[in-house]
């Protein structure tokens, strides 16, 4: 091709001649085959084409704590009560209140707002109750929609107004703890929030019917 000539006097159209010679040697017909082989090798290295195994769902007892990066929750009690206005829930004719007493600790490093449709209440789902709680309140001073400070445990009440005969005394209530993922907003969204609940543990607790309260 270009032998023995000084590079400053090489004419322009053969300046990249060596590159052309090299690329002529690459077997372009084999590109597809080589790419497929590389893809399969990488897939095999990452575990193959089978579906990833979902994490096991642990079965817990009432009083056991479920801890993740967002919250640590323990179910203390589930009660059925005629009225529970201190918890911020108001019932109509033919309704009673189903209240869950939950000990919560914020394990994240920012405050978490425990409102009825927050990531805190999405971390706990009740079989048979599709809606989020009607109200969330602290058990000790009845603060509605409490803010959970990082590392500070609190006992909160999640309350639903339900049909009077929807639940019986000593009925087993199946609850699911969900793990959420921390999402960082980008482009048009700003901040960080917890989203995408994935079932991680279950608890079965018996509902106590305490009548009018006490």
């Amino acid at each position, binding site marked *: 091709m270009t032998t023995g000539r000084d590079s400053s006097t090489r004419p322009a159209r053969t300046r990249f001649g060596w590159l052309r010679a090299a690329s002529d040697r690459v077997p372009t017909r084999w590109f597809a085959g080589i790419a497929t082989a590389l893809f399969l090798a990488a897939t095999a290295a990452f575990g193959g084409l089978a579906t990833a195994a979902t994490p096991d769902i642990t079965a817990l007892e009432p009083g056991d704590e479920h801890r993740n990066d967002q919250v640590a929750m323990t179910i203390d009690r589930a009660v059925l009560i005629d009225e529970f206005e201190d918890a911020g829930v108001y019932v109509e004719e033919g309704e009673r209140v189903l209240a869950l007493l939950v000990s919560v600790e914020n394990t994240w490093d920012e405050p978490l707002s425990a409102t009825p449709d927050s990531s805190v209440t999405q971390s706990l789902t009740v079989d048979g109750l599709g809606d989020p709680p009607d109200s969330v309140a602290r058990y000790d001073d009845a603060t509605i929609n409490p*803010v959970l400070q*990082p590392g*500070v445990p609190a006992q909160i009440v999640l309350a639903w107004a339900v049909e009077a005969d929807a639940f019986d005394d000593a009925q087993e209530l199946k609850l699911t703890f969900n793990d959420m993922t921390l999402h960082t907003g980008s482009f048009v969204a700003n*901040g960080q929030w917890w989203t995408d609940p994935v079932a991680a543990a279950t608890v079965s607790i018996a509902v106590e019917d305490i009548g009018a309260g006490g």
Partner: protein
Amino acid sequence: MRRWATWAIGGALIVAAWGVALITPPEDAFERPFPVTVGVGERGEGRNIAITVHEVRRAEAASAGEWTAEGNWVIIDLDAEAVISEFGTLLSLATLEVDGRTYAASERPDSLRRGSLSVGIPRSGSLAFELPDDVDPADAVLTLGLDSDPRLDSLIVVPIDLSEIDVESDAELQPSEWSTR
């Protein structure tokens, strides 16, 4: 061109590129808030907020009127006022950062949290922060602002050394009222 010149220019360009990468501001730099840092006892003035922190107290129990609660409480006594407009102006951002964790002013007692501010007329009161029992805080940073979204507005930032403050057994929050100072 001489070969050494080519290499020298190439090397200089690489160094320049490294320098540009170092001084490039981060992605969110265009939306950063404007912090005004002051000490305890000094008045910090932002665009529409001016705060003077008078005292920082720590206690094992906090009370405000009839409400009381035990815990690891940090109580900040402060004066707050607006500067140019008071329509819809509230002290909505009040956080204490200790050891990498951010605590928000507690909503449990009545306090200056989300209190409305007046232009030129300071309101005095307290903010209460509930910390975990096992945290013995040393350096803390108090941040105060008008909106929980602090981007592109002023923030008053007060660094506090909590290790110098003795822990009382009980502390009462000051009522929210017009400042008499």
